């Protein structure tokens, strides 16, 4: 099987890191993985997205026109990628910054108030992890222990204390995605 995920948001929302964590976790899980960033034409304060692929077979293109899942952290990202999701796929969107919900009915749409939840956790920077949690909940792409290991690797030595809040964010994201 091959799963492609596009994660998109404003620069600074941490979509790149979120994608790298997922790819790393996939590798730990023994899968073929790839991660590919893309920066919008507005390089500053603009939008950014990355594509992560987790697959059993060798990966061809690291970018895809129609991913299995999209995580949209802001409005422009949703506008850009809603139509791209493959029928039967998954769309996670950040309710905190997107007021009008997506309209697609042939895919699974999950709203998660990523910023709000992150705020509640006392660190708005982990909004990305909340969204990642939602994705993991809905797709079961990689087991949670792989994500945990990936996070440990990703956090530099002097920031290992951030592990807990990141894991908590993922957990809250999972819970948020359970409800609907």
């Amino acid at each position: 099987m091959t799963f492609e995920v596009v994660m998109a948001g404003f620069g600074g929302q941490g979509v790149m890191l979120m994608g790298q964590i997922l790819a790393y976790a996939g590798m730990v899980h023994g899968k073929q993985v790839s991660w590919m960033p893309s920066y919008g034409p507005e390089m500053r304060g603009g939008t950014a997205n990355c594509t992560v692929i987790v697959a059993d077979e060798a990966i061809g293109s690291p970018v895809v026109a129609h991913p299995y899942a999209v995580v949209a952290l802001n409005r422009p990202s949703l506008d850009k990628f809603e139509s791209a999701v493959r029928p039967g796929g998954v769309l996670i969107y950040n309710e905190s910054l997107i007021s009008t919900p997506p309209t697609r009915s042939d895919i699974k749409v999950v709203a998660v108030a990523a910023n709000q939840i992150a705020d509640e956790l006392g660190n708005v920077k982990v909004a990305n992890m909340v969204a990642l949690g939602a994705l993991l909940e809905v797709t079961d792409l990689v087991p949670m222990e792989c994500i945990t290991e990936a996070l440990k690797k990703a956090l530099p030595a002097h920031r290992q204390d951030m592990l807990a809040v990141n894991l908590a964010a993922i957990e809250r994201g999972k819970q948020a995605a359970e409800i609907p």
Partner: protein
Amino acid sequence: MAKVFARPESLVDMQNHYCPGCTHGIIHRLIAEVMDELKFADRAIGVAPVGCAVLGYMYFACDMQEAAHGRAPAVATGIKRVVPDGVVFTYQGDGDLASIGCAEIVHAAARGENITTIFVNNGIYGMTGGQMAPTTLPGDKTSTSPYGRDTHKQGFPIRVAEMLATLDGPAYIARVSVHSVPNIVRARRAIKKAFEYQIAGKGFTLVEVLSTCPTNWGLTPLEALDKVAKDMLPYYPLGEYKDVESEAGAKK
């Protein structure tokens, strides 16, 4: 009610792409203000650099050319020779002007080419993600001086205004800053003088503007203004380095 301050007309009414708090935006506005005041937008031809200001061609309400990285002075020379009564300016970053485009700016200055250069010195390569610039301060960490700029291996910052002031060609060379409102007012004055000199045909003019890059400096916009005041000013003293009208050209 009277307008005390409004967006200048020569600044196209659109959102710019600069990071929050980046002073590129202030410098753009000052140029536009001077264009408005001296009323030369309809004969201005600007040259945008490769750098964060690469999209500058969208923002000024005048004819624009987008130059190759570092070559804006050469492009401007080509333009000025064809349109001698145009008001031609380049807008260049420190990577663009002081590194790859070093020969072009020295020679435009030496030729006394009748153009105006606005030189935005933020001590870093903003657009490409924070690499060391020729103007990066000793000890400063950047993505290509991760252990801090080591002058022994990576050399010393270039003081462009001082260097170009040794030449006979320039009519006006000044260094200003935009890290505070009074300095912004002074910067505007220098930019105005530079354009006035060009319009009067006095020769090459350059205004070096100390600027911030909060994103790649890893500071908040306000902290970045502070860094200009505390770290940059001592290395890059403000003042007029050359002024053909007061030939002492003394640093003020």
